[in-house]
């Protein structure tokens, strides 16, 4: 009994800190940043990262190491670097802890209605942590950028939560084991591929994918939703005063948010490697292809659009994310009441 518990705790900590937790998620985040930069550059007839590593794949890592090891952190008269660190550490902690809810982890957590735990972590803690960090450096640009960030979050977070409720509701309604652990992220991810086979749930899932992609684009502040940063207009918006290790921390948080969001879409909506097992050649190929596909879709939108104004961004998220998510959720709830 003691050995079993020690094994479970050991594998839980390894999952959290190594795979697929902090170390793996950091590597995936750095790869994702490289992918977005490289593919985006090729779309715009530029080279993108080229010199560090094969095809410049290590460039984001080197950028981060330079900030971490070499660059000075500027301490402004009114700033609180500790508050900024606490905010970003909370946000990174929330993202890394969330991977324990996915089937990718060797140590998996599941509970009835745990989708709300995921929403609590990703929609509340990540955003709150970022806001706390940004406001630690008072500055007109920072305040304007943060107010834009909050404005976007007000519409993007509800849309994101509505979108993740679609597959979990459909899983609970349509899968026989859904009654045992209803609205579970883990079991929904393991059965998401089945939800595409039913004609009615197909429509809801398609609306869900569409809406969560748009919400992710806004949450990750990728173009056309890079409104809080607004380079030419607000210097760097909410991160104007960040430098050195603090900026490295922000870059890591931002890339991790993109990586985790793409991973969540890959599992919760596209079914991960299933019906193949994780540790099989087809399983790994399917998983990687889906992840890269999601990242590619985010990159295409990021590279094809210019920045929206804040009211355009707000309306676009409502139109292309919140409304499709609510329609999809309506269909899912209809199916739920028909089957349960």
């Amino acid at each position, binding site marked *: 009994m003691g050995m079993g518990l020690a094994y479970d705790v050991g594998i839980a900590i390894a999952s*959290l800190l190594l795979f697929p937790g902090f170390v793996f998620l950091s590597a995936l985040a750095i790869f994702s940043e490289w992918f977005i930069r490289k593919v985006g550059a090729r779309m715009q007839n530029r080279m993108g990262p080229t010199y560090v590593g094969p095809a410049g794949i290590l460039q984001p890592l080197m950028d981060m190491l330079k900030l971490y090891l070499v660059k000075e952190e500027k301490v402004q008269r009114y700033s609180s670097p500790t508050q900024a660190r606490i905010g970003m550490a909370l946000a990174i902690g929330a993202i890394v*802890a969330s991977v324990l809810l996915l089937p990718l982890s060797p140590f*998996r*957590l599941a509970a009835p*209605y745990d989708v709300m735990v995921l929403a609590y972590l990703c929609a509340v803690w990540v955003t709150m942590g970022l806001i706390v960090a940004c406001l630690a450096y008072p500055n007109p640009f920072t305040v304007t950028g943060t107010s834009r960030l909050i404005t976007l979050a007000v519409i993007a977070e509800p849309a994101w939560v509505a979108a993740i409720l679609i597959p979990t509701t459909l899983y609970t309604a349509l899968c026989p084991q859904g009654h045992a652990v209803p609205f579970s992220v883990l079991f929904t991810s393991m059965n998401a591929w089945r939800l595409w086979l039913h004609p009615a749930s197909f429509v809801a899932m398609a609306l869900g994918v569409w809406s969560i992609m748009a919400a992710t684009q806004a949450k990750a502040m990728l173009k056309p939703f890079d409104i809080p940063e607004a380079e030419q207009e607000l210097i760097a918006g909410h991160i104007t005063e960040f430098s050195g290790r603090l900026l490295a921390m922000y870059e890591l948080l931002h890339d991790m948010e993109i990586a985790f969001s793409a991973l969540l879409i890959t599992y919760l909506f596209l079914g991960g490697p299933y019906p193949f097992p994780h540790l099989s050649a087809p399983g790994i190929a399917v998983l990687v292809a889906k992840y890269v596909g999601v990242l590619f879709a985010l990159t295409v939108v990021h590279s094809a659009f210019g920045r929206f104004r804040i009211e355009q961004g707000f309306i676009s998220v409502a139109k292309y994310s919140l409304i499709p998510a609510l329609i999809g959720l309506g269909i899912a709830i209809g199916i739920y009441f028909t089957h349960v």
Partner: protein
Amino acid sequence: MAVTVVASPGAVAGYITAAMALVFGVMLALFSGGRRSRSGDEMYIGGESEALLKVRVPSNVAMYWGIVRRAMGRVYTVLRDVVHSGKLSTWSGFMVSWFTILMFIAIGITVVIASVYGW
């Protein structure tokens, strides 16, 4: 071998919060310290002085030019709509009426001067 723990929502929320706290501590330890600089510790406002933030209303000069620009903007719009219609007759009509007004003013001034001082 994967370990799957199915528990109550409260327990999972507790485990996840503990996991989050562990990563939070690791992140704080990892990103603490580093090279810091206090030289030039003023707020960055695009090269402006911090005194700028104390100004609650624009200065008198800025207010004057703001109002003039706004008012002149309207005058410009009126003139553009009248003169820049692209029709020669509109333009000549405007110019003739304008010169007529100027001529009447000149005649009036001449009459006043002549009646006061004589020819």
